[in-house]
Structures are given as structure tokens and as C-alpha cells.
């Protein structure tokens, strides 16, 4: 607890986008300098899955990358921000629907995320940021596709929920 009191609220609840956006850009480009690889998150999932399933192809550092993402999130949310502890997440979704509806729906959504990312060969970070930064046409197509699908789906959710979501 003492550590939390010392470091808590070093960061605001939400840092300005014009600071952390460029920071992520530098991190992405810096990763090419060090590892010569794009910084994609779904690749880390695939490698972790391969590792668990004992498949032949695996790059161990992507598993460390997987662990690192959670560790970085832990340090920031639990120690550097002023709102540590447990929460349920999905605030607005949960205030609109009971938990027995929320859980199956977000599970189905998550399966679609994994399935789609695997077929497209990347997700928001791999295609959306790293891919476009490399000026890859395939990534621009994939990003256009998932942005369009997400905006249309959100509009549909808004209609179905009667404007609550």
C-alpha cells in the first residue's frame, strides 16, 4: 500500500492522446531498430497458443512480449494511476444489460476477434498501426475493412439496444 501512496496519481486517469499517441509511434518504429519486427499483439497470442499446444513453430520472445503487455498494464493501472484494485470493466454495457447477457456476448465477440485477426493476419496493432506505418497495402485494406465493420456493427448495436449502448 505504501508504494501505491507514493506513486499513485503520477499519471492522470487518462493521459492526453497527443502525448501517448506519438509515444506509441516511437515505440513501434524503435522496435524495428531493435528487433526488426512489427509490434503486433495477435502474433503474440498465436505464439503463446503454439507454446501451450506444443506446436513446432514458436518464437519465445513473443510470449515474453505477451507477458510484458499485461505487466505494463499492471504497473500503470495499479501503481501509477489513482484507481487501483478490482473492477468489472464494461461499465456502460453492464449498466444497460445484466451480467448473464454481457458474459456470453463478450465471449462471442472475443471469439470473432481471434478468428478474424488470425484470418486477416493481424489486429489493430499489427495491421492498423505497424502495417500502415510500413505502408503495406494489405494492412490498409484490412484496417479499412475492420473500421467499417466495427462502425456498422456499433450503429446496429445502438439500434437494437434502443440507444442505450
Amino acid at each position: 500500500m505504501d508504494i501505491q501512496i507514493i506513486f499513485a496519481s503520477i499519471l492522470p486517469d487518462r493521459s492526453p492522446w497527443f502525448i501517448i499517441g506519438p509515444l506509441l509511434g516511437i515505440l513501434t518504429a524503435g522496435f524495428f531498430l531493435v528487433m526488426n519486427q512489427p509490434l503486433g499483439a495477435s502474433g503474440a497470442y498465436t505464439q503463446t497458443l503454439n507454446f501451450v499446444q506444443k506446436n513446432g513453430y514458436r518464437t519465445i520472445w513473443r510470449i515474453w512480449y505477451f507477458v510484458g503487455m499485461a505487466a505494463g498494464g499492471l504497473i500503470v493501472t495499479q501503481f501509477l494511476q489513482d484507481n487501483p484494485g478490482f473492477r468489472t470493466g464494461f461499465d456502460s454495457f453492464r449498466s444497460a444489460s445484466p451480467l448473464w447477457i454481457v458474459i456470453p456476448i463478450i465471449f462471442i465477440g472475443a471469439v470473432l476477434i481471434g478468428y478474424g485477426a488470425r484470418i486477416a493476419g493481424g489486429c489493430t496493432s499489427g495491421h492498423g498501426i505497424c502495417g500502415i506505418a510500413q505502408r503495406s497495402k494489405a494492412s490498409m485494406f484490412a484496417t479499412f475493412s475492420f473500421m467499417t465493420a466495427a462502425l456498422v456493427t456499433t450503429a446496429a448495436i445502438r439500434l437494437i439496444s434502443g440507444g442505450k449502448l
Partner: protein
Amino acid sequence: MKLWQKNLFGLLFGAGFGGILAAGTLHEYDTIHSMLRMDEFYVYGFMGTAIMVSMATLWVFERNNTRTLVGEEIKLERSTPQKNHLKGGAIFGVGWAVAGTCPAPALVMLASGAFLAAVVIPGIFLGIHLASKGDNLGFGDGEHHSTRESSVAV
């Protein structure tokens, strides 16, 4: 580069990425949802500046023939658009809107103490498993093809 160095860099860059996402509350359903409802500019500004800065930096690297730490030529991957990019992207986009999160923020969500992430993360793994169909090759532009040869059984 030695294996432990690669692992360490993987961990550090992962932590940086996760930390940045957490600082921007990108792991919160409400943040993603309000972006997709177009109520808020925040995430567009975040992703837009991230793309612009990394694109410009990589362009400078390419022009100056910058070498990596171990003296390799920087390899950028540019695949030709194919059906799978559009199809996979569309499926991913629907899931993104429904669950209000994507693979990296889901891990941060768990770290933030949000226990519903324990529903999301297994779901993502299941989706990847279902789409893999025994083909355990790596990712496209999210992961360079060159890793495939060099990383077998590492």
C-alpha cells in the same frame, strides 16, 4: 542477438505498449465504444498520431538506410491485399465492436483488475485456434515472414 536479449526486449517493449494503452484507458469498453459511436475523438487522435509518427520514422530509417542494433538492414513488409485481409478484417471488426476490446487491450484489462477480461482472453485464444486449423504458421504483416525460417523450434 542472443536469445535472452530478444526475450528481454520483447518483455520491455510489451510493457511499454501495455503501459501506453493503460495510460490512455484503451482497455476500457467505454473508451472503445465511445470512439465507435463517434462520440469522442480521443482514440482517433491516439491511433492517428501513432501511425503518423511511426510511418514518418520508418520512412526516415528507410531513406537513410538505417541499420538495426545488430547491423541488419531494416526490413519492411508490404503484402498484396487479398481476400483474407478483407474477410478477416470484417470478422475482427464485428468482434471489436461487440466486445469493445482487441487483443492487446484485453491483457491490460485483466491487469487493471477487470475480471470480465477472463472471459475475453480465452475467447480470443479459441477464435485463433478455430481459424488456425492445424496451420501454425505465423502472422502476415503483424509478424514478418522471415521469422518463419529463423524461428523454428527456438
